[in-house]
C-alpha cells in the first residue's frame, strides 16, 4: 500500500513534465511549418493538410479521453464531430452578415459547435452510460450512424415566414422563392466561410491538450480513472458513477464538436456522408497506435497516419487493411501476458543499454 502511494506521488511529477514536452512539441512543429510555408517551401499538398492534421489530432485526443481515461469504447466519435461541424457551419452562415469580423464569429462558431455536440453527448450518454463494455460500443456506433443519416436527410431553410425543416425532400420544405436554403439533404451545406487557419488549428490543439492533461490530473479525472480501474471499489467509496461518466462523455463530445467546427470551416462544402463508421474507426486507430491513455501518442499517431497515406498515395488500396492489422497487432502486443512480459524485459535491457550509451557519451564529452 505504501509503495503504491509512493508510486502515485512519483507519477504526478512526470505527468506535468510529459504535458510540457507535448506542448513544446506542438509549438515547435507549428513554428517549423509556419516558417517553411511562409518561405513557400512546402507543396500545396502539405499546405492543404495543415488544418486537417490539427482536426484529426484533436479528435484523437478526445477519443483517447473516452477510451484511455474512462475505459469505455465509443464508436460514435464521428457523429459528435458531425454535429459540431453542421451546427457551427449553420451559425457562421446565419451570422456572416451580422458579424463580419471572422475573428469574433469563428470562435463563437467553434464554441457553439462544441456545445451542441456536448448536448448530443449528454442526450446520448444518459441512456447509454448505464450500459458498459460491448453494449456501449454497439450503441455509440449505432448513434453515430443515425446522426449521419438524419443529417443527410435533413432539408432546412428559412424565409420571411420563418424556419422550415423537412426530412423528406426539397419540395416538402415549401420554401419561398427568396428563401435561403441552409441544409440541402445529402448535398449538405455549401458556402461556409473558410475561417479555419493553421494558426487557429494549432491554438485549438494546444487548448485541447491543456484541457486533456488538466482533466486527467483533476479530482474528476482521478475519480473517472478509479471507476475505470474498479467500478465496485469506486462505488463503495461513494463516487457517483453515472455523473463522472457523463462528464467525461460530454467533454469528449465537446472537443470532437470543436474539431468538427474547425473541419467544416476549412472546406467549402460539408456533407454528412463524411462522418461514417470508417472515420470513427480511423480515430480509434490513432488512439490505439499512439497508446491507449497516452495523449501525446495520439497526436503523433494522428499526424503520422494522416500524412503517410498522402505521401505514399500508391499504397492507398492497402491502407485500410493496414489499419486493421494495426488494431489487432497492437492489442495483442500490449494486452497479452506473454508479450507484455517480453516487452518489459527487453525495455529494461534497452534502457540499460541506452543509459550506458549516454553515460559513455557524457564521459567522452568530458
Amino acid at each position, binding site marked *: 500500500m505504501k509503495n503504491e502511494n509512493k508510486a502515485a506521488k512519483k507519477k504526478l511529477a512526470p505527468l506535468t513534465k510529459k504535458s510540457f514536452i507535448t506542448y513544446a512539441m506542438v509549438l515547435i512543429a507549428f513554428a517549423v511549418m509556419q516558417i517553411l510555408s511562409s518561405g513557400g517551401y512546402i507543396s500545396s499538398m502539405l499546405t492543404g493538410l495543415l488544418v486537417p492534421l490539427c482536426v484529426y489530432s484533436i479528435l484523437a485526443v478526445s477519443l483517447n479521453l473516452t*477510451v484511455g481515461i474512462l*475505459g*469505455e*469504447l465509443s*464508436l460514435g466519435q464521428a457523429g459528435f464531430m458531425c454535429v459540431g461541424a453542421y451546427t457551427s457551419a449553420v451559425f457562421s452562415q446565419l451570422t456572416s452578415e451580422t458579424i463580419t469580423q471572422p475573428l469574433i464569429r469563428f470562435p463563437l462558431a467553434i464554441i457553439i459547435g462544441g456545445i451542441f455536440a456536448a448536448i448530443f453527448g449528454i442526450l446520448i450518454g444518459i*441512456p*447509454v452510460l*448505464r*450500459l458498459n*463494455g*460491448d*453494449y456501449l*460500443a*454497439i*450503441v455509440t*456506433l*449505432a*448513434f453515430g*450512424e*443515425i446522426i449521419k*443519416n*438524419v443529417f443527410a*436527410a435533413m432539408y432546412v431553410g428559412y424565409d420571411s415566414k420563418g424556419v422550415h425543416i423537412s*426530412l423528406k425532400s426539397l419540395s416538402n420544405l415549401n420554401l419561398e422563392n427568396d428563401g435561403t436554403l441552409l441544409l440541402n439533404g445529402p448535398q449538405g451545406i455549401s458556402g461556409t466561410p473558410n475561417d479555419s487557419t493553421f494558426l487557429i488549428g494549432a491554438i485549438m490543439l494546444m487548448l485541447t491538450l491543456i484541457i486533456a492533461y488538466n482533466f486527467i490530473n483533476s479530482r474528476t479525472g482521478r475519480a473517472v480513472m478509479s471507476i475505470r480501474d474498479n467500478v*465496485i471499489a469506486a462505488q463503495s467509496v461513494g463516487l457517483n458513477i453515472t455523473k463522472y461518466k457523463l462528464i467525461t462523455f460530454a467533454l469528449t463530445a465537446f472537443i470532437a464538436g470543436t474539431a468538427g467546427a474547425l473541419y467544416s470551416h476549412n472546406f467549402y462544402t460539408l456533407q454528412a456522408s463524411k462522418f461514417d463508421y470508417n472515420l470513427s*474507426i480511423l480515430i*480509434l486507430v490513432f488512439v*490505439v497506435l499512439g497508446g*491507449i491513455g497516452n495523449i501525446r501518442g495520439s497526436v503523433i499517431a494522428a499526424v503520422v497516419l494522416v500524412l503517410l497515406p498522402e505521401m505514399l498515395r500508391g499504397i492507398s*488500396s*492497402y491502407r*485500410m*487493411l493496414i*489499419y*486493421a*492489422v*494495426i*488494431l*489487432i497487432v497492437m*492489442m*495483442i502486443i*500490449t*494486452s*497479452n*501476458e*506473454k*508479450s507484455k512480459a517480453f516487452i518489459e524485459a527487453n525495455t529494461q535491457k534497452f534502457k540499460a543499454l541506452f543509459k550506458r550509451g549516454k553515460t559513455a557519451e557524457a564521459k567522452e564529452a568530458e
Partner: protein
Amino acid sequence: MGFLNNLINGISLGSIYAVIALGYTLVYGIAKMLNFAHGDVIMVGGYVIFIAMTSFGLNSWISILLAVIACTLLGIVIEKVAYKPLRQATSLAVLITAIGVSYFLQNMALLIFGEKPVNFTSVVNVPSLKLFDGKIVISGETSTAIVISILIVVGLSLFINKTKSGRAMLAVSEDRGAAELMGVNINRTISLTFAIGSGLAAIAGALLCSAYPTLQNTTGAMPGIKAFVAAVFGGIGSIPGAMIGGILIGIIEILGRAYISPQLADAIVFAVLILVLIIKPTGILGKKINEKV
C-alpha cells in the same frame, strides 16, 4: 393486407437475424466476448457460395456445405490467432481486437473481390405461396428462412443439452474456473463454440444473400450488429431467446421502415436495445447474472 405483407417480411428478415443471433449468443455466452467479426463471417460465407456456384458451377447444396466448412475453419483460425492470446486481457482490448478482425475481413474481401456488389443467385428453390388472390405473397426464401431457423434452434438446443460437448459448453458458460477443475478442456470448448457459431454464420449468409440477392464486402456488417441487438433482446446466452429476439427485431425494423420512416428504422432498432437494457437488462429469456466482485 399491406400490414400482413409487412409482417411476413418482418418475420422473414427476423428469422435470418435469429440464425445470426444464435452465433452471437453462443460465443457471448461461452467466451464472454462480443465477436464483432461475426457479421463479416457471414459475408465470407456468401462469397464462398457465390464463387462455388458461379465460377465452379457447383450445385447449391454442395456450395452451402463448402461455405459451412470454410467459415468453420475461419472461425477457428480467428479465435486462435486473434482472441486466444487475449483470454486474460481487459474486455476493452478484446473488443478493439474484434473490431480489428472485422475491419480486416471487410477490407481483405474488398481487395480480393473488388468494390462492385455482385448479384447473388438464390440458393432457394421453393415456389412462393400466394394467398387471397395474390394479395399476400410468401416467397420461397421467406418460408425457407423460417423453417431453417426453427430447425437450427431445435438442433442446437438438443446438442447443448444432450451431448457431452454441449454440456461442456454449458459448464464453461456457467463458471469457467469450476469447469476447468472438473476436467473440461476450456480451449477446446471455446474453439468448438467458434466453429459452430461460424458454421451457422455461413448458413445465415446463404439465407441473407438469397432473400436480398446482393453481396459486397460490407454485406454482413449491419445485419451482424442488428442480430447482436436481437441476441441481447432475447436474452444473451439463451438459444430460444435468440430466435424470439431475432424475429421481434425483424418485425420492428420492417414495420418501422414501412410506417415511421426508412431513415429512422435503424434508429428504432437501437432504441429498442437501449430500452431493453434499461428495463430488463437480461433480455426476455435471459438469466440474471451476478456481477462478480
